[in-house]
C-alpha cells in the first residue's frame, strides 16, 4: 500500500477539489468512505437478514396455532436429513444443475471460440448481439415457447415423428433442455471474454512448436480458459439450483426451489423452508469456494 508521501503533490483546487485533495492525502479515509455505503447495505442489511433466515431454520411452527415458536430445535434439519424424499429432491436438483452446466459449457465453447478467435470484426459484433438479445425476451415467455415445442402435438414431436421417435414431453429431460437453453448466454459471454484474453501469439507459438490443434486445445486453451468456464458455471449452476418456475411448467416433479417455495406460504412453515434452503446455500458456498480456487472470480 503506497503512502501519501510518495505521491506527487496535486494542484490546489476549491470546493470538491479540496475535499478530493484532502482525501487523496488520507488514503484510509478514502477507503473508508468508498466502502461505507456498499458495506453498510451488504453486510448489515443483506447478510443480517440472511443470518436471520438461517436462525429461523432452528425454530419451528406450532401446528395448532400456526405461530412460529422460537425455541431452538433441530427438528427441521432432522426431517430434511432423515426423510428420503428430501434427499431425492436435493440429489435430483444438484444432478440437474451439474448436467445443465456441463451442457452449456460444451455448447458454448465452440461458438465462443469462433467469435473470439475466428470471426471478423463486424461478424463478431453481430454474433455478440445475437447472443445477448434473447436475454431480453423474458424468462417466462421463453419457457412458454418451449412448452409449445415440447407438447404432444408440438414442434419437436412433429419433427421427430417421421423418424418414428417421440420427444421427451414434459419431464426431467425437458427441464434439462429448457434450463440449458435459458442459461446458455450466461456461459457464452464469460467464455468468450476469457478466450479473447488469450493472445493469438500464444496459440501460434504452440503450433510453431509442433502442437496440433488437439494438443493446443488441451494444453494451452483449456487451462487458460478454465477461470472463465468456472465463472460462467457459477451462473448456470446457481440459477438451475434455485429455479422453481421451469420445473413447474415443463415437468411433473419437484426441485429444491419448489420445496422451499411450497413451505414458505400457506403451509406457513418458514422454519422448515429455511432449513431446506440451507441445502442449496451450502452447496453454492462450497461451489463458490472451489470456483474461486480455479480463478473464477477474476474472470467473471
Amino acid at each position, binding site marked *: 500500500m503506497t503512502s501519501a508521501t510518495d505521491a506527487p503533490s496535486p494542484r490546489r483546487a476549491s470546493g470538491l477539489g479540496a475535499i478530493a485533495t484532502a482525501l487523496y492525502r488520507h488514503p484510509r479515509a478514502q477507503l473508508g468512505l468508498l466502502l*461505507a455505503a456498499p458495506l453498510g447495505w451488504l453486510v448489515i442489511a443483506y447478510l443480517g437478514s440472511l443470518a436471520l433466515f438461517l436462525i429461523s431454520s432452528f425454530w419451528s411452527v406450532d401446528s395448532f*396455532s400456526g405461530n412460529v415458536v422460537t425455541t431452538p430445535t433441530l427438528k427441521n434439519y432432522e426431517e430434511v436429513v432423515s426423510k428420503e424424499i428430501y434427499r431425492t429432491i436435493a440429489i*435430483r436438483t444438484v444432478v440437474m444443475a451439474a448436467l445443465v452446466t456441463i451442457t452449456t459449457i460444451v455448447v458454448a465453447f465452440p461458438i465462443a471460440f469462433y467469435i473470439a478467435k475466428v470471426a471478423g470484426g463486424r461478424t463478431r459484433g453481430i454474433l455478440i448481439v445475437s447472443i445477448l438479445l434473447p436475454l431480453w425476451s423474458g424468462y417466462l415467455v421463453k419457457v412458454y415457447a418451449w412448452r409449445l415445442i415440447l407438447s404432444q402435438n408440438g414442434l419437436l414431436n412433429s419433427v421427430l415423428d417421421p423418424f418414428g421417435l417421440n420427444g421427451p414431453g414434459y419431464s426431467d429431460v425437458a427441464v434439462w433442455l429448457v434450463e440449458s437453453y435459458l442459461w446458455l448466454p450466461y456461459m457464452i459471454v464469460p467464455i468468450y471474454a476469457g478466450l479473447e484474453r488469450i493472445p493469438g501469439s500464444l496459440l501460434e507459438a504452440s503450433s510453431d512448436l509442433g502442437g496440433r490443434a488437439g494438443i493446443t486445445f488441451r494444453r494451452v486453451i483449456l487451462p487458460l480458459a478454465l477461470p472463465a468456464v468456472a465463472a460462467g458455471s457459477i451462473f448456470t449452476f446457481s440459477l438451475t439450483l434455485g429455479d422453481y418456475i421451469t420445473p413447474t411448467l415443463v415437468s*411433473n416433479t419437484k426441485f429444491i426451489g419448489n420445496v422451499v417455495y411450497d413451505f414458505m406460504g400457506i*403451509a406457513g412453515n418458514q422454519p422448515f423452508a429455511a432449513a431446506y434452503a440451507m441445502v442449496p446455500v451450502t452447496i453454492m458456498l462450497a461451489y463458490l469456494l472451489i470456483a474461486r480456487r480455479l480463478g473464477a472470480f477474476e474472470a467473471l
Partner: protein
Amino acid sequence: MQRRTWKAGIAGVAVVLTACGGGASPSASSSAPASQPAASQPAASGSAPAPSASTPATVGEGEGELTLVAWAGYVVGGTGGEQVEGYDWVTPFETATGCKTTVKVGLDSANMVQLMKTGQYDGVSASGDATLRLIAGGDVSPVNFDLIPNYKDVFEGLKNAPYNTVNGVGYGVPHGRGANVLMYDPAVVTTTPDSWSVVFEANSPYKGKVTAYNYAIYVADAALYLMATKPELGIKNPYALDQTQLDAAKALLVQQKSLVSKYWGTAQEEIDGFTNGDMAVGTAWQYQANVLNTDAEKVKVTKPKEGATGWSDTWMISSKAKHPNCMYKWMDYILSAKANADVTVYFGEAPVSDAACAEAEKQSAGHCDLFHAKDETYFEDVWYWNTPTTTCLDGRTDVQCTDFDAWTKVWTEVTGG
C-alpha cells in the same frame, strides 16, 4: 496514487441515501431487529383463534386510499387496478367513495398469505386454502356484516361458510364461487364419464392423458373420491383427514401419478395441455372450458357422481388495515349487483346474489345457468376449498387431523418422489 475522490464524494452521498431509507412509517412487524421473518401476531392458544382486532361499529368517511391483494382479474380498472381494455369496475368505486385503489396481484395463495403478513395491505381476496391460516395467524379481522348493506342479498349457501367463519364469527364476504369440474375432450374420451375413476383408477383407459391440479389442496379431491369408494375409511369431510385417511389419499395420488401427463398450476397450462394433445381429461375450472370452447366446442365438463371440490374466494380485511373504512366500502361494493356481475362474468364464476345474476345475464346470456349460480342443489355435494387444520373440521375430537403443512409434505412426496 489514488484518485478516488470523485467516487468518494458519491460514496458520501450514497451513505446518506441508504441510511435514510424510504422515510415511511415502520410497520408493526418491523419494530425489533430480532423479529421473526414470518412472525404472526401471538394468538390465543387453543382451538379458537382470538380476533386480533375489534370490529368497528360504524363505517366512517373513506380514507382516500385502498391497497388490495387479489387474484388476477379481480380488481380491474381505475388507475391502480389491473389494466384491461374494455373492463373497469374500479373507477365507479373510486368515484363513489373517493378511495383510490391499487392492487397487488398475488401469484398464488401462498404468495397472498406472505403479502398479508407484511401488514401493508388493507384487504385480500383469499381462497379457502388460505383463509383459516390467515384467521389463525391473526392477519385478518372479523367482519361486522351490519356495515355491509349488500350482504343481505347474498345467496344463503354462501353465508357462514366453514372456510371463513370460525365459531360463528365471520371473517369476510364471498366474491363468487365455482366447482372444480371434470373436463374432458370428447374426441378422446368417447364415453361420457360420470365418475372421477377415469383420473384415479389404475385401469383408466386414458392413462397418459390425465391431468390434475398441481397443489397440495388437491389431496381433498383424492379424499373426496375415497369418501365414495372406500367408505370404511370413515372420511366425512375431505378437509378433515386423520393420519390414516391421509395415507390412503396419498396412496391414491401416487397411483394417479402414473396416469398423469402433466399437472397444471395455472389456467393457461391446462388450456395449452388440452389444445396441444397432452391432456384429455382432468379437473378444471369452468373458465378453462370457456376459453377452449370460444370458437368451437372442444371440451365438455361434468360434475361426477362423487361430487367435487370447489372454491369461493373471500374478501377479508387486514388486522393491520390502514384504511378500514375504504375496505368496508369495497366489500360492500364488490357485492353490489353491477360490480359483482362485472367481475364474475370477466373472471368466469358464479355471481353471489339474484341481483348480480340479473346484471350478469345482460352481459352474458346464460351466465348464471352455466355456473349454476342459483342452483343450491348443485353445490350440495361441492366441497369448497378449506384450510385443513389439526383441529378436525368435521368436529371429531378423538383424533388429531392433519394440517396443510402435512398435506404439503404429502404432495411433495407424491410429485417429487
